[in-house]
């Protein structure tokens, strides 16, 4: 039984330091009419909640809060559902503690 977190992920991401590479998303979702079950699983499995369902029922990714864990790559790259790469050198999440 999935439980509701007591703290929103969006708020957790505020603790982190990011250098966002505007206009250069390092992860892209392949255009689709109905999302695959893999893509749908990312709505829950992404630890930064980067994946969301838009009002057309398509899965979208917003990489600003991405913590570069690679979970979506492991689930969705092989099937071609997403294109995955690292941000350009120096950009993205910058852990102070890690």
């Amino acid at each position, binding site marked *: 039984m999935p439980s509701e977190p007591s703290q929103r992920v969006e708020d957790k991401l505020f603790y982190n330091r990011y250098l966002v590479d505007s206009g250069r998303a390092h992860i892209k979702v392949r255009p689709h009419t109905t999302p695959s079950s893999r893509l749908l699983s990312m709505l829950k499995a992404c630890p930064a909640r980067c994946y969301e369902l838009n009002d057309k029922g398509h899965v979208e990714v917003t990489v600003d809060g991405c913590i570069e864990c*690679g979970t979506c790559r492991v689930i969705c790259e092989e099937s071609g559902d997403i294109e995955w790469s690292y941000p350009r050198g120096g950009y993205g999440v*910058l852990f*102070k503690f890690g």
Partner: protein
Amino acid sequence: MIQERFDAIVVGAGMGGNAAALTMAERGLKVLQLERGEYSGSKNVQGAILYADMLEKLIPNFREDAPLERHLVEQRFWILDERSHTGIHYRSDDFNEEKPNRYTIIRAQFDKWLSQKVRDAGATVLCETTVTELLQDSHGRVVGVRTDRDGGEIHADVVVLAEGVNGVLGTGAGLRGRPKPDKVALAVKEMHFLSRETIDARFNLKGDEGLVIEAVGTISRGMTGMGFIYSNKECISLGIGCLVADFQRTGETPYGLLEGFKRHPSVAPLIEGSEVKEYSAHLIPEGGYRAIPQLCGEGWVVVGDAAQLNNAIHREGSNLAMTSGRIAAEAICLIRSRKDPMTAKNLSLYKKMLTDSFVIKDLKKYKDMPALMHTHSQNFFLTYPQLFSKAMQDYVRVDGTPKLEKEKLMLSSFIKARSWSGLFSDALRIARAWR
């Protein structure tokens, strides 16, 4: 960007990459190390326990200036159900030794320090540089790398892939497959800051003594996973990880599990009043021995997490990364001193040396554990923890029920949940996989 040619290029400045670059630079090789983060450590996440022995082999006097948090004097293993924990605690004053065996560290700080040692040894370290591709000649031989910097082709005799668990380059060049959902765990982690005095009091510590708690049970909701709590000087690293395939299957959220773990009545008092300063996530290779890919080829070797060298049963990874990085570097130096080329045949010396070390021996010992834990995750991570704590509670609660009756009830609850044959085969399975 860089016109010169290098003896070796190391991709990644994590535990494995730093060990390899340091070892080769110290022996006079011309080494280039490339790291995509702003500094070594800025992309890395770990619990983290540092095992002294493996670092000592690289830097014998590391205790003089390494950023160490606390040396460990106590280890707790907890089996949790919703409201209780059954624990095994091991604490010994023997660990208050002159040269302690295990420490907690903060990865970003530790990696920065280790990276400075690599520079001091003479390697060229370029951060903020993502390697985008391995350069291969017409025979498929790796001859260098391409980076995301201008004019970014750089050549070298050998490339050490220390790119971590995601291993994008190795996959891209067809040297190994992608990490699979049932072979990697996703861990999420928070850093909770508290005063030193508070941590000392809550964990019963003094001076630089430290403590580790590892917890399994209903917190992973039937998924293969584990929670951890590590005490640092002025903060607590707290996290939980489960197999990616299990997240995919159950629809549980990683942050949901983390919040559940933090709210557990045995955990909440430990972090009460803390200030959280970071939320991170990272994959951990969990496939063990059977998931190890090809370790070397024409002009390349792979070390650390990228080679799945991680002992999930004992929570050891960085020491395997450090050791494999060092051994790969030693093999490369040996081949070079004989003036031999960096062919697959010659580089297989690395594989041989690694097979003779604890790295492969340990992984081989547990080769059947990952599959066992995964296929029987409901039993091991949900049913047994619940049974254990019910049994413990019944046993310690004094309520006028005769002890013999209690023992009978306890046994029948186990048999009801798992049946005699189920219990027997679970025990046998563990014994076999452990051997």
